[in-house]
């Protein structure tokens, strides 16, 4: 019984991995740059917290932040700001959200992640918000 469950679980995991690999996404840092600057930065800049440069954190710090998925000190999730529903809610006022309205959530998230890692202070091209 236990062996059977283990085999079934392994097969299921294998299928999930295969599915993920088949659609392995080649992230686009330039698209990430547009979304980060037009959505993340424009909102942050309008608030007291101010804009956050990608180069203000290291790659490890950005990875940890994104993995933790806690925005505004845990009040909400980071990933929700990459969701189609969020983009739909701001697209009338935000051209980047409108332009990328139909992009899958995980692809947009990977785009921005790549831009942040590339622009981190120890990244290949440390970047500011501007």
């Amino acid at each position, binding site marked *: 019984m236990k062996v059977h469950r283990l085999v079934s679980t392994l097969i*299921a995991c294998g*299928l999930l991995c295969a599915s993920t690999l088949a659609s392995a996404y080649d992230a686009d840092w330039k698209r990430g740059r547009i979304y980060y600057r037009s959505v993340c930065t424009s909102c942050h800049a309008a608030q007291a917290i101010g804009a956050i440069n990608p180069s203000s954190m290291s790659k490890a710090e950005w990875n940890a932040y994104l993995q933790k998925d806690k925005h505004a000190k845990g009040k909400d999730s980071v990933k929700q700001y990459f969701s189609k529903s969020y983009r739909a809610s701001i697209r009338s006022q935000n*051209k980047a959200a409108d332009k990328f309205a139909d992009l899958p959530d995980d692809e947009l998230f990977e785009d921005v992640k790549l831009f942040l890692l590339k622009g981190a202070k120890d990244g290949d091209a440390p970047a500011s918000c501007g």
Partner: protein
Amino acid sequence: MKISHLGLLAGLLFAGIVHAADAPAPTKLNTTADHSKFKELQREFGSGSEVTKACLTCHTEAALQIHRTKHWTWELLNPATQQRLGKKNVINNYCLSAGTNLGSCATCHVGYGWTDASFDFKSQENVDCLICHDTSGNYKKLPNGGLPPVKDTESPPGSGKIVKAIDLAKIAQKVGKTSRDTCGACHFFGGGGDGVKHGEMDSSLASPDKEVDVHMDATGLDFTCSTCHKAPAHDVAGSRYVPTGKDTEGAHIRGKVDNSNPATCQSCHGQAPHKAGAQPAKLNQHADKVACQTCHIPQFARGGVATKMNWDWSTAGKLSPEGKPLLNKDAKGHVIYDSRKGDFVVAENVTPEYAWFNGEVTYTLLGDKVDKADGITLINALGGSAADGRSLIWPMKVMRGTQPYDPVNKTLVMPHLSGNDDTAYWTNFNWEKAIATGMKAANAPFSGQVDFLKTEMYWPITHMVAPKEKAVGCNECHTRGGRLDKIEGIYIPGRDAHQLLDLIGWLAAGGTLAGVMLHALVRIVRRKN
């Protein structure tokens, strides 16, 4: 439990089959070739030239095409003036000249290893494909003739600054079309820094919003440079050395052979671009005398990056009491004094100056006579007037400078600035030594004496087109003291007055008023009677 696991398994299999049957196979839609799949690029590369060799196995004609362009030769013969121009030959009032500074300057050459006259311009492997076709944004070239750092490198030597090695294979596997980032890696940083030279080209154009440039707006039209600057056979259209002052052709149409400059406004918008608004016909009439850019680029350096407006080399060389070079910044962090370079004036949101321009540009080249007593020396004199029928009123960035010259031979000079040798000015702060080295390399005479003269250089402004709502208003030109106050040879209503014309106007208006009043008076009197 067993049933539930089997159900999960079946569900996943079914979902996978349905997904595979319905969805087209995943592929890249922005290119027809995934370069990561090419065996030629699946290896380690020890130099940029090795990458080029791999590129040439498929793109057999690419390097030879590059060899024919000014991006490769840095040389261009102006057919109108017969002047030999190009970066290799001209002198400017920023970093003065390429000359013996090629090690640094050639970081922006589309080649590998150009540091002196021994560079092989016929070598196909010396062509740098990656500088234009990198899409990773990670490509770098060092100030050693533009070689990429394939291992961690101290640059400049002795500085203690380490440039991290780049993985050429990863970059080569991600090559693609040129972009604002690739062109901008050089053209945004001309003159030695972000936005220094052009005024309307800086890093803000890498991912601009509509306010900065309506065409390149990253969330809108998203033009790349090559959308306008077409590059058949790798030869990029639209030259600052031989610009188009007045494009009289219509919009380019697919299938119609058109040899006119594809980078002008008219090549897309035609000769009557205004279709809507309050007075489209009146605005279109302006296109006969006014460049599109004059109204549609109200200011330059609008993206948050300051541009240099004045560079005074005569104050360079001051050192601290400890003998160290100085670096002073303004409140915003802009460098305003550098011992190696002198004093700077920088500015953002700059209102252009205006001039008649017909596309003719005559440079003051090495060997041309200049004289401090003449006042300001024009680095590039613009052709154009109200009367020649070929000119339009153009917006200009006017770069003003004070730069070294030879007061005995009365010529501009090409100093040796960068390098770790004993004569480089940025190392030894000695003008005489630096100029002697630079002029010797240029095979030009130098008296040994150095003085400074004032210069001006004109840069027609053509990028950073603002949204139409932000275009220059009528009253900004049609008024005394307005934008076009110094433009001569044309009558601008609101700015200009002609005594006889004014008298006729006032007489007509006064006469009309008097006539109406007299008529009214007569009618009143007659009614009473």
